């Protein structure tokens, strides 16, 4: 709905022609909303700050979110919030307008501010629109109905993992449908148990090439081969995600703790009952292994 409203507003204000609006609305259906547009929309960053980060991206091989945090334009919590809403299709038109160069970031910032003042009245209404985006991709693809009430834990974990894969490893990652976990020999399996009021096995299985790319991306180190540093890098990525999961659970009143990460080579997973969820990356594939109980 927001896309249609903002489109109509732009037309009424003669900021865009009808033909241009049709063009961007068609494009908006497939566009991925980038963090810069989201950040401007919610007021976390100004257009000037977004432009500065884009300039830095041209010389530094770092993701938008990481650079924005390093520059002090975003906090980690704000970045997490933006990533949570990155599948928000409501901002697709804004992204399309910028991509098609019908608006600059500065113009977008001005339009959104003006639109909200003219159309949204109360602050609560503005916030409702801003939080309309949910992790739709995961909910559409995954089916944990067989897990009953525990399905919610799987869903929450995958959503958190997916956000951090997008943040640190690959913004174009795609979730596949979950399957029951099988007895498969994994070239590499990094796993860690989360224990406490609920017990969750978490594992990331991958081949040599994928492990090395993940290690390089997460650590930012030059890693010529799979050595202790490369393995520890992937283990630390899983550890970081699981730590956030524990903190989120603690904030909801559930106390959890982490056990040591382990990384095994050419072995069958110790998980006998649970799910395997494929995640396709631009450079390889991970099988996420999850099991409760």
């Amino acid at each position, binding site marked *: 709905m927001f896309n249609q409203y903002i489109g109509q507003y732009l037309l009424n204000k003669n900021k865009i022609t009808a033909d241009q609006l049709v063009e961007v609305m068609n494009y908006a259906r497939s566009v991925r909303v980038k963090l810069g547009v989201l950040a401007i929309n919610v007021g976390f960053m100004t257009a000037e700050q977004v432009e500065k980060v884009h300039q830095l991206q041209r010389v530094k091989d770092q993701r938008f979110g990481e650079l924005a*945090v390093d520059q*002090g334009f975003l906090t*980690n919590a704000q970045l997490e919030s933006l990533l949570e809403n990155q599948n928000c299709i409501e901002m697709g038109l804004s992204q399309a307008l910028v991509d098609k160069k019908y608006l600059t970031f500065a113009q977008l910032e001005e339009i959104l501010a003006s639109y909200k003042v003219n159309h949204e009245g109360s602050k609560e209404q503005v916030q409702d629109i801003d939080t309309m985006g949910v992790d739709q991709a995961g909910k559409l693809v995954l089916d944990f109905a067989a897990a009953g009430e525990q399905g919610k834990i799987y869903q929450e974990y995958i959503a958190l993992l997916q956000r951090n894969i997008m943040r640190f490893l690959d913004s174009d990652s795609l979730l596949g449908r979950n399957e029951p976990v099988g007895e498969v020999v994994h070239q590499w399996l990094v796993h860690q148990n989360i224990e406490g009021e609920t017990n969750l096995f978490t594992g990331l299985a991958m081949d040599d090439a994928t492990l090395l790319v993940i290690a390089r991306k997460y*650590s930012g180190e030059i890693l010529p081969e799979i050595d202790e540093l490369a393995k520890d890098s992937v283990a630390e990525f899983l550890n970081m995600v699981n730590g956030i999961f524990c903190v989120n*659970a*603690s904030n909801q009143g559930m106390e*959890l703790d982490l056990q*040591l990460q382990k990384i095994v080579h050419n072995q069958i997973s110790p998980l006998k009952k649970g799910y395997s969820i494929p995640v396709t990356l631009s450079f390889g594939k991970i099988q996420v292994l999850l099991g409760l109980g």
Partner: protein
Amino acid sequence: MITEKTKILICDDSSLIRKQLKDLLTKMDCEVVEAVNGQQVVNVFKEIQPDLVFMDIVMPEVDGLEALRNIREYKQDAKVVMLSSVGTSTKLIQALKYGAMDFIQKPYTTEQVLKVVTDVRQSKLA
């Protein structure tokens, strides 16, 4: 007048964390020593008497909270900052109870580490 470098002991079972933290602290002109678990860190602490310890929690042999407690028993004014992915309220409370100076949740930022080092340096001058 030659100023002594700030001596920092880092304890984490992850070689990635040890390397990156050491690189960062070295750029801040600190002298860095490493330990890989909660048992080793206590022995190294007694040996080198660092100005500051960065301590992970989940580690083999002895965990970071136990190591913190042991270090603080040995030296009551030891400065220990927990650097862990498990930033739950339970862990935070336990860490503060055992005398941790601060608790930083991973992934840490350069600013967080710099602030701690600056605070320690200033307290040395005072």
